[in-house]
């Protein structure tokens, strides 16, 4: 049976079509989920795509957190049962929902930055990164205005010591993220938040590489193996 991966559209979601394409290219069936429906349609995993949900008003992701769909998603994700990948605005929503610690703040340059970005994969045991080798460097796209990951020192230490830093920026610092953190996971490894965009590195024709596809093949492998996510 083909894995069904939901892609949520909030008002202001922009990379939802791209996330759905990446899911399909990886071999899964993308399922459109609507923010206002408290219905996950029985999907096996969910992607919260990039964009400016609710215009980024108040704070990025702060309003999306209260969408009816999130009332279904959050408990399932928190329990470890539902794999969720939040990309860019999706990462911001995961932080605002307290599924992941810390917050994303304005880039240190105070400007939007769009560039091809090398990441180092540091945790390959999550539901979304098992297709990579530990230490593997991948080229994806970074495009965000509020991508600087911040958390207090104790939280950062805890993330590091428990291996929950999933990917880190390689090379010069693009946005001021603490300790070069580009993506993190929760204690169960089912929820991953990324500031860069792997879904824009899935086709040689349109992306800087195809090395972002691994996030989407990872979830397929995890679901196919039937490996229960650590609960």
């Amino acid at each position, binding site marked *: 049976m083909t894995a069904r991966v939901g892609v949520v559209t909030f008002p202001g979601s922009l990379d939802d079509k791209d996330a759905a394409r990446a899911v399909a290219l990886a071999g899964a069936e993308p399922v459109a989920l609507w923010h206002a429906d408290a219905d996950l349609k029985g999907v096996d995993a969910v992607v919260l795509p990039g*964009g400016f949900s609710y*215009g980024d008003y108040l704070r990025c992701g702060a309003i999306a957190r209260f969408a009816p769909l999130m009332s279904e998603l959050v408990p399932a994700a928190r329990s470890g049962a539902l794999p969720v990948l939040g990309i860019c605005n999706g990462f911001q929503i995961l932080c605002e929902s307290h599924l992941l610690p810390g917050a994303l703040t304005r880039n240190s340059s105070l400007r939007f930055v769009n560039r091809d970005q090398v990441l180092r994969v540091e945790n390959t045991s999550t539901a979304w990164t098992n297709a990579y080798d530990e230490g593997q460097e991948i080229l994806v796209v970074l495009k965000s205005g509020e991508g600087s990951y911040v958390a207090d020192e104790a939280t950062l230490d805890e993330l590091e010591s428990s291996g929950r830093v999933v990917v880190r920026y390689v090379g010069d610092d693009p946005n001021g993220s603490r300790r070069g953190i580009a993506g993190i996971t929760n204690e169960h490894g089912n929820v991953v938040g990324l500031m860069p965009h792997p879904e824009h590195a899935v086709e040689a024709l349109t992306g800087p590489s195809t090395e972002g596809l691994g996030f989407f093949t990872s979830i397929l492998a995890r679901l196919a193996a039937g490996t229960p996510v650590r609960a």
Partner: protein
Amino acid sequence: MSEVPGPDTVASAHSSPDTPQPYAELGMAKDEYERVREILGRRPTSAELAIYSVMWSEHCSYKSSKVHLRQFGEKAPENDALLVGMGENAGVVDVGDGRAVTFKIESHNHPSYVEPHQGAATGVGGIVRDILTMGARPVAVMDALRFGPADADDTKRVLPGVVSGISFYGNCLGLPNIGGEIGFGAGYIGNPLVNALCVGVMKHEDIKLAQAPGPGNKVVLFGATTGPDGIGGASVLASATFDDESHAKRPSVQVGDPFMEKLLIECSLELFAEDLVVGIQDLGAAGVSCATTELAAGGTGGMRIQLDRVPLRDHRLTPEEILMSESQERMMAIVEPAKMADFLAVCEKWQILATEIGEVTDVTPEEAERGGRLVMTWHGETVVDMPPRTASDEGPVYERPYARPAAQDALQSDDPAALPRPADDVELREQVLRVLGAPGVGDPSWVTRQYDSYVRGDTVVSTPHDSGMIRIADDSHRGVALATDGNGRYTRLDPYAGTQLAYAEAFRNVAATGARPLAVTNCLNFGSPEDSGVMWQFAESTRGLADACLQLGTPVTGGNVSFYNQTGDVAINPTPVVGVLGVIDDVRTRLRSAFDTDGDRVFLLGETREEFGGSAWADVVHGHLGGLPPRVDLAAEAALGEVLATAADRGLAAAAHDLSDGGLAVALAESALRGGLGLRVSVDGDAFTALFSESAARAVVAVRPGQEEAFLALAADHGVPVAEIGTVGGDALAVTHPGGVVQIPLEELRSAYESALPALMDGV
């Protein structure tokens, strides 16, 4: 606050024919005002005066440019691809497979000087709504920008604001910014140019037009509420109700809300897909005035509007102010009564406010003869009763006097051949680095890095390559390419040739990425039309573009004119920006400008002459503008374009880059830097001319070893001069010439190319 008087009604216009009216303050000439009185057979009400003053403004009526713009229709080449021509919100061309593309470029120059961030942001918003209004999904944007000298204080205010506005609005809409251009020049200080282009894709059957057929159909305003932003002259009309100070605080520049626009796009596309509208118009310049008069004029001619039903964000607005407000993110639809419930449900889904404000009415034959009948009421009293066509289609047309300026001869005879040239290879090398690092020639990524080029996942080519190219459907490999170009220096020296050179460069850029040019849009940025010299530039420029489009078979599908880009008596260099759209059957064959494969052979296509008039070299090294621009040879451009597109089709080219500002020197440096490899090149004759001449109809191409013969044969077939000039490899740009060699390590090139803008802009 003084007591608010009642509205100026049609009845009071009849009863008080001699009331003085502020037509001059609204920018209307006395004879224009007299004509309004003649049309109506009485004095206009304040609301009617508001409508006529904005609809007959230069911006909306093209009254000074119309007689020249007609050539684009009269000289239009036969082209079966043109589905909707000039006059609608944007032109539409057939790109095959039952799909069509609509595209247009428009200026937002003056607002971007007053308030750079919002001015530029709402410029993007406006052009995106024009494209949406045609029934298309907007899929990409690009911008042509001009600023004062990069080191001028005001440029450090205007440029970052303009860029942040485009970034903020375009990124938030989820539209990739796929290219454009940036230039600097003394004349643009105080007169920056912000020209925004949008392209949209649709099926043939989805084309929508601005029309209001069917008496009884409802007029629905949807999107943002109406506020006092963007009201220029309306405050004059309302001067009895507010004191001067409160007017001063009212913003004349509109404020954009891209989130609302994103919802409006998705909502409108769903309304179109479910066939819930029979006519549609966006609200841009002149707001409700423009939308109602144009929709009515395009339909039965009859419409009845209850102005007091327009949802406001400031309840104090008067009828005149509502009519003139340029609040952003608003659309007007004509909806059949039976479909109103479904229409409102879609709006509800997208959290878009929609309000029925009137209906389409029948007109008598007499009313039709007069230009239709548009009636507007304000709490039951009639404040407008006019023939809408007289405002939308029958505005004044001026044959402004024009004459070649006396100084033109002196300018053209100031030949750059007299300028000192580099004495030796050391000086030549230094000048290559100077030109390469000059703002406008050097790396624009300080700007473009703030734009999302990836969103939607269909961007196949984007900045810094020669065109922006997108795949237009998931089920096909077809794509469209777009490039904009304009060179104010060339156009100043010879407006006819300079405009053709802008067109030729955009044509060449599209071809250099492997697409075949199909259609044209333009944004004509000039000084005051009341200056006969400027008007001569405009007449020559439009004639040049129309002739070029006819010769190469690419119709002009629409565009925009921006006059009054001048400070005091000093106009900007005339800057027609030409956008060329091309089609590529298979985007997988597209070419980029990076020479990234060791051992590839480098070919130069086209003929190099001693041409330095208006060149980047003359400008950067000598601050000189004089002589004649490069010679125009449109047949050579067509042949070059065919060689490039065919080379892409057949896989005979690995990469290609057009030659323009800075000539071969800049093209080679850019291709080397983008590929991360050096180039070993040798040129015949004078190295200075070879490197810096800006002769048109030229490109450099990288060809894989083994394919040289086939490539040479292809060029020969089309009669395009071709020379193998070198090889990709090493870590320097090395140019050998009969007198010596100029060698510059890539790192030194990169430092010159990349450092100019960041050094000037960072720390702003």
